[in-house]
């Protein structure tokens, strides 16, 4: 059993996605990278569970094709 939620879990996915992109409006690449980093840290703290975070890191890693 995976502890990571890998099935759809965000209500209004389209709305969230467009907010995510909009958050970067007008930012330079460096500013965008900084925003992403802050966002990841905020979300990671919200999750808190170390095992879930580890599973998320694994899931995000590029897969060999």
């Amino acid at each position, binding site marked *: 059993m995976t502890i990571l939620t890998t099935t759809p879990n965000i209500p209004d996915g389209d709305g969230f996605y467009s907010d995510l992109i909009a958050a970067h409006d007008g930012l330079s690449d*460096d500013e965008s*990278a*900084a925003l992403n*980093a*802050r966002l*990841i*840290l*905020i979300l990671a*703290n919200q999750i808190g569970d170390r095992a879930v975070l580890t599973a998320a890191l694994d899931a995000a890693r590029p897969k060999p094709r």
Partner: protein
Amino acid sequence: MLDDRYALAFRLYPYEHSPDQDAEAPVRHPVVVQGGGPIGVAMALDLGLQGIPVLVLDDHEGIGQGSRAICFAKRCLEIADRYGAAEPMLDKGVVWNLGKVFHEDRKVYEFNLLPEAGHRFPAFINLQQPYFEKFLVERVREAQAAGAPIEIRGKNRVQSVEIFDDHTRLQVETPEGGYVLEADWLIGCDGAGSPLRGMMGLDFDGRVFQDSFLIADITMKADFPTERWFWFEPWHKAGASTLLHKQPDGVWRVDFQIGWDVDRKEELKEENVRRRLDAMLGPDVEYELVWTSIYTFQCRRMKKFRHGRVIFAGDSAHQVSPFGARGANSGMQDVDNLGWKLGMVIRGEAPDALLDSYCAERRHGADENILNSTRSTDFITPKSKISHVFRNAVLDLAQEYEFARPLVNSGRLSVPCVYDGLPLNGPDALPGGPLRSRVGSPCPDAPLGNGFLLPQLGGRFTILTVDAEAPDAVAEDGVTATRLALSAADDTTGALAERYLGAAMSAVYLIRPDQHVAARWDRYDEPALRAALRAACGKGHDR
């Protein structure tokens, strides 16, 4: 040929001719310590106070100038106290609790170490390393006067060693020429560059950090508070990071991260050091330079700290970056761990195998220290663009949100490691017992009457009972553990109960000579205690 490699702060053991130099055949010593830095001298104190003859050979006549270590942690002071050397350190040292973290031109947050009450020693003192070493040597002199068989020979440089199964033979160089010595046991305390390690062709692998730090100790008239200030990417650009820390005698330590490709000679010129300091302190602050130096940092250790009759301790065995002050602090824990074990083996009270546990336990400690100081170094000096982005994201968030503050890593201050799951440990059979005094931990201090608990422990095996019965002494296979009978009521602050009972009503602890917990139970169980005592002496576990 025997030129000093550094200038002396205190000339404490001038060269003297030894009768050993005229002996027909090499004189054999039970223990020779190669290197009289803080760790070598502490090693000599531990053994000498046990009555074991110990000879320290150092290639200088005293203590080197320049304060490398400045932060000495509680555990280190507790160990020094066991050797009777901590009092002057505490008197001289500066106690600090408040730390501030800055990024560019703003304060990110501040923290208070909030020392827990009921400990004889503070979490940390700041003290110049030469003082720390001087107080140890002064304690050696005192112990010698009281008959402790310790000898320190200055300007005695070990040139080469020959290793045998049951001893080593040393070629020693002095201003009057060379002589040969033999040692049943040789302890390598000759520092990070350990010539002994080199002579034996032993490994020392790890990571070199591609950065350098300019360290300036200064005195100033300006009145900065006694706090630790750490800047990430400071506005003054005098360093990629900068640390300001107070020492005794009105001295401040300033530490500039200056990058990898630097011209050391150029950077150390007074005008260039002053240029950085002026940028940081402003043009109106008057100061004097006491000492400057440039360091590069590495984190590495030997694979094995013990090689037959040769044992390594301190920087020779493991080296960490200074963030978190784990160098001398962990070296003192090596000595604390090795001293009683070697003493028992030499006295025939324990098998030689007990010394292998020194390697297992202190390697565990070294790995923990290397892990911590590597993480700090990676945070302070990010190695990639993305690592830099995340580091600054943490600093940005920390200013506003509490959650990010624990992620800010400007050095995790040295705490002793717990020997979790290692072979000398006995049962942890105290249901509801506190985590902090679990088997393998160093005993936490607690108030006791007008004094403290720790001075009553150590140097021997102790059966610590809290509201429990036990015999006054238990002798097992030539080793005696003596009882220290306490009651939770002995400490009205409740710290003793909180640190040793937790939710339990009574407790029996078996405590090692280095004040680490060997086993614990809720009541006295003779066969179990005897088995634990044997296990703690390296005699194996009953099956």
